[in-house]
């Protein structure tokens, strides 16, 4: 059984079709790329999976459970985490606090226990802090744990956002243009990093990316969206040859 299954998912905004008849099955451990020209509906697909938007049609099944139209926080609890195209860190909180927030969903102590600091709460908190710190270490940000997230350089903010997503302990990670605004060298580093966390955290990853070289280099399978319609899917080699894809991108700079 596949980990994530989208069946005929569509979304209209005030009659305007953003995505239509979107189908996708992801097996555990896969790394799938989602590409397409600007405005093709890629981020909308993410928003549909994570519950930010409710699909107007179709079904989304995750780990065998129908999660269509579920609230975003409940979807995150079930094991889907994401990053955002335009970084959405809690910029006034520290890097460590950003990661800590994402641990909150596992807290079992009630607010009352948190206020009187019962033993259970304390040990939970200790565990959360320890885990968050080890995550920061894993992404190479331990030295800026106490810095305000908004003051970090761009590349570190991207990595912090990934660390924050990891703290929810997802099995499926959605990355929305993680390499945006990076130069080829940085983008390459990021790809190595994504491979590494995929190994270390046993993740399934769905990736939106504009850097073609990066996508082609890392993904096993690629879907191409154009005007909300899936125009091609297959291995990187197939996609590069696909006539539909070439014409969709014709004249469009793919800043890779």
């Amino acid at each position, binding site marked *: 059984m596949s980990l994530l299954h989208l069946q005929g998912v569509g979304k209209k*905004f*005030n009659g305007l079709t953003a995505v239509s008849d979107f189908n996708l099955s992801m097996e555990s451990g896969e790394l799938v790329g989602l590409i397409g020209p600007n405005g093709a509906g890629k*981020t909308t697909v993410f*928003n549909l999976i994570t519950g*930010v938007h409710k699909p107007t049609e179709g079904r989304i099944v995750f780990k065998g459970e129908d999660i269509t139209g579920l609230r975003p926080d409940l979807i995150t609890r079930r094991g889907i985490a994401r990053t*955002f195209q335009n970084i959405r860190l809690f910029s006034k909180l520290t890097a460590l606090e950003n990661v800590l927030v994402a641990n909150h969903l596992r807290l079992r102590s009630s607010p009352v226990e948190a206020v009187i600091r019962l033993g259970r709460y304390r040990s939970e908190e200790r565990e959360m802090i320890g885990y968050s710190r080890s995550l920061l270490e894993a992404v190479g940000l331990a030295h800026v744990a106490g810095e305000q997230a908004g003051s970090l350089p761009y590349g570190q903010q991207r990595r912090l956002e990934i660390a924050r997503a990891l703290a929810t302990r997802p099995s499926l990670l959605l990355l929305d243009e993680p390499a945006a605004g990076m130069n080829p060298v940085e983008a390459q580093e990021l790809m190595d990093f994504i491979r590494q966390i995929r190994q270390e955290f046993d993740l399934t990853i769905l990736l939106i990316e504009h850097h073609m070289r990066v996508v082609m280099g890392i993904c096993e399978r690629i879907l191409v969206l154009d005007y909300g319609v899936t125009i091609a899917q297959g291995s990187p080699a197939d996609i590069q040859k696909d006539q539909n894809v070439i014409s969709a991108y014709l004249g469009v700079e793919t800043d890779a």
Partner: protein
Amino acid sequence: MDLALFFQHLANGISLGSLYALIAIGYTMVYGILRLINFAHGDLLMMSAYIVFYGMLVFALPWWLSVVLAVLLTAALGMGIERAAYRPLRDSPRISVLISAIGVSFFLQNLGIVVFGGRAKAVYRPAWLAATIDIGGVSITTLALLIPGVTLILLLMLSHLVYRTKTGMAMRAVSRDYDTARLMGIDVDRIISFTFVTGSALAAVGGIMWALRYPQIHPMIGVMPGLKCFVAAVFGGIGNIPGAVLGGFLLGIGEIMLVAFIPNLAGYRDAFAFVILILTLLFRPTGLLGEKMAEKV
């Protein structure tokens, strides 16, 4: 139900509703452009009423001159408030501007108490305004006829301004998209000032008619109409001028009818608007004529 009595109440409701509409327009215009609930808007009508009062009584000016002066001074005050208390916060979180607006509102009310005194003052109402006219068994005061008439004329002028002039086009552009409007070469600051001038002038006229209707004034006179007219603007669809007019009329008529037909609820009259507000926000946050706005993720 006695039909004549019904029309009597309806006339009364229309008269009150047109006042609400006049004041609600100022709220909706400012909200449309700045996304700000201008808490001080209601207090402008109080200021205007006092200016007429003092103009006629203390400076013995003719009534028309006092009215013109009141409209001009209130418009200038509205513009000044925007300059001093809102403009410096243009790039701050919206809540900061809201707090500033609350501050200005309380400042005006209490300045009113300091300068004009806290006690209510009776307003002189010319006899011809209080005279009643009988139309098919419904007796209406001249004033109750005059208020919708004035409102109608002002609405026509406003719609000409907003939909037929270049400035009006600029206003609509700014309310649609602030930054793009600026890129198109529109002087956004000037348009915002102009919006405040227009809205405040309408509130000034509303204030004078309000004072004549209840013939008395006090420094807190703007508070309830202010809150209610904001409700009217939300009810009609905030940022939408026809919506504000519609909301104002419906609210005014509804309020009068509520009291007329369920006298037991007379004490809850002022709560009526807030109930409408909450129902609107819950079931149709965009209001009757408003457009939907979504946050981009």
